[in-house]
């Protein structure tokens, strides 16, 4: 299923291109909006900027993640297959994770260039740990909610309404953790606390998806 979603995306380029354009354009806007005459220190704000951009970029991809299944009626084909519903969730979540990771791989250098020149490389392991844990949370929550939203006519509207309030705790942890890392406190208690919070957040939504996905994707 993951391979199918990737091949389909490589051919249509509907999701990744729009996600990437949004992320880069938002960073350019932030760069000019927050440039301080005399080059003031922006490290306190950069974590928030980065994760707002990633969360909204991810939302674009999540909105499209079931589009092929729903628009072409392939959801029935998928549900007819003798595979556990949780397997479908994990495959969809993995595909969403890959698309988000790919966007970040392309966007983080742009971010480093604008906002964190020199500081990111020094604290890369802590930054990557934050990104991986936050991405798993975004993909788990987003895939579950995208599945629920796809059954409604207003799915493009419903997904952000459901997703954004629930992603706020993750956004706060990832943003404050990233700001702390970029400010040079990579090994601090506050960053380790954020990482622990993200781990628990991921666990909660993975368990929730495991327990409810059969109903979420059902009738």
């Amino acid at each position, binding site marked *: 299923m993951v391979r*199918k979603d990737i091949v389909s995306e490589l051919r249509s380029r509907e999701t990744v291109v729009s996600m990437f354009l949004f992320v880069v354009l938002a960073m350019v806007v932030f760069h000019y909006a927050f440039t301080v005459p005399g080059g003031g220190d922006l490290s306190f704000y950069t974590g928030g900027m980065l994760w707002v951009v990633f969360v909204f970029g991810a939302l674009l991809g999540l909105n499209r993640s079931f589009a092929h299944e729903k628009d072409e*009626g392939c959801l029935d084909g*998928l*549900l*007819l*297959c*003798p595979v556990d519903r949780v397997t479908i969730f994990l495959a969809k979540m993995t595909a969403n994770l890959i698309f988000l990771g790919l966007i970040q791989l392309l966007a983080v250098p742009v971010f480093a260039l604008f906002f964190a020149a020199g500081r990111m490389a020094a604290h890369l392991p802590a930054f990557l740990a934050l990104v991986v844990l936050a991405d798993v949370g975004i993909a788990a929550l987003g895939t579950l909610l995208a599945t629920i939203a796809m059954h409604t006519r207003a799915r493009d509207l419903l997904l952000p309404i459901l997703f954004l309030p629930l992603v706020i705790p993750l956004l706060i942890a990832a943003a404050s953790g990233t700001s702390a890392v970029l400010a040079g406190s990579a090994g601090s208690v506050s960053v380790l606390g954020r990482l622990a919070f993200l781990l628990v957040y991921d666990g909660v939504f993975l368990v929730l998806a495991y327990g409810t996905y059969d109903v979420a994707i059902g009738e």
Partner: protein
Amino acid sequence: MDREGDAALAEIRVEGLGKAFGRRDVLRDVSFTVARGGFLTLFGPNGAGKTTTLRLLATLLRPSSGSVAVAGHDLSDDPMPVRRAIGFISHNPLVYRDLTAQENLCFYADMYGVADPGRRIGDLLERVELSHRRYDVVSTFSKGMLQRLAIARALLHKPRVLLLDEPHSGLDPHAVDILDGLLDEVRAEHTFVMATHNLRQGLELADQVMILDAGRAVFAHSGRLAAADFAAIYREHVREGALV
């Protein structure tokens, strides 16, 4: 044959099946059995419950009441073997338009765990006369070609039961001929349940018919029926809607 003997040979056993969406009953107390190798055609006007019945048999809906067993497995307790035993063909081909015919069939072969998928896909594409378009993206296919690919998809895992939901819908006469030829070819290998409005296509292969109206089974008959006789029976039992 007695009732217990019938049930033992039944490939599909449906008892008191009901389905409600919210407070609206769309299917009420429908019962039938289809023997292995049998062909049941469901007739009825729009909204009669034909598609709901097929979607319940295919595990795409959960029954509100009653029980369904397919290939000896109860649908509610044991849906996985039921899914393995079923091939589903509807007017929607259930294939991904961004993928090639080969990629679509490879995907479904993976999902069903088909042994030697390369050979099976090659054989099926040959059978549905799509070998020459094997590596073409499905979005370039005509409606008839899509429906032939849908047949290959449905037969891929050698299902014991084929469920057909108005499979002729939207096809031109040539594509209908190809589809009927294919169904005729695989007739002996499967048990069929087909929903249709089309009298000729519905009666041609069927050895069992049922008329649904407003969610209830209003007529059931085992054995072949002449088209003229069946049309009269249909008019007698169904309040609205005509057969084609």
